[in-house]
């Protein structure tokens, strides 16, 4: 998994933020490249550039090895993201891909939960295999 972070700040700003603050919060510093989307042109094509504020709002996009976007989440600025939900989605998408799309994860699925194998006899019988407790 390759992570890339982007904001409209310059790469010089990223350096100072990283070296002066983030490297003191994360052991060994941030392992991924921190990209500068100066002018918000990249954010604009991803639908996250706020022209009034002049910044990219919080948005994340999960891209598979073929370059296809599998998931996206976009939030307004005051609410932070939930990394557990992100990791859950990554594990689910990676599992589905590993099975060539023959196994799918139902709503609320967590790693370790039963997985549904797509077949005609499953139609109308999901309730027998998938019993969410939550």
């Amino acid at each position: 998994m390759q992570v890339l972070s982007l904001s409209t700040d310059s790469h010089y700003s990223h350096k100072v933020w990283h070296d002066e603050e983030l490297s003191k919060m994360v052991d060994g510093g941030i392992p991924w490249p921190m990209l500068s989307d100066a002018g918000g042109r990249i954010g604009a094509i991803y639908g996250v550039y706020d022209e009034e504020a002049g910044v990219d709002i919080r948005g994340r996009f999960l891209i598979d090895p073929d370059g296809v976007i599998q998931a996206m989440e976009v939030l307004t600025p005051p609410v932070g993201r939930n990394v557990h939900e992100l990791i859950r989605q990554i594990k689910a998408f990676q599992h589905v891909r590993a099975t060539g799309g023959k196994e799918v994860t139902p709503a609320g699925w967590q790693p370790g939960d039963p997985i549904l194998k797509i077949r005609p006899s499953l139609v109308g019988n999901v309730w027998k295999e998938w019993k969410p407790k939550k």
Partner: protein
Amino acid sequence: MAEPREVSCAQTARGPLTAAPEPEVSETATPSKEVEMIARVGKPAPDFEAMAYHQGSFKKVKLSDYEGKWRLICFYPGDFTFV
């Protein structure tokens, strides 16, 4: 000692590399400047190039540099913010 060439004030990365759809040319309508969002689930992720800070140095990074890998791209409003 001269600064390394990579340190310059100008932004040299190209930004989006995926051509936006050609706006329809009409004699009456003024061309819209609004950039169209082209990112969609199930569709190819638009490629881009940007200047980056990574492990002590500045370099240009393209989304397509990581072809064949799972990628997570993460936008946020600004450095030094709180959430």
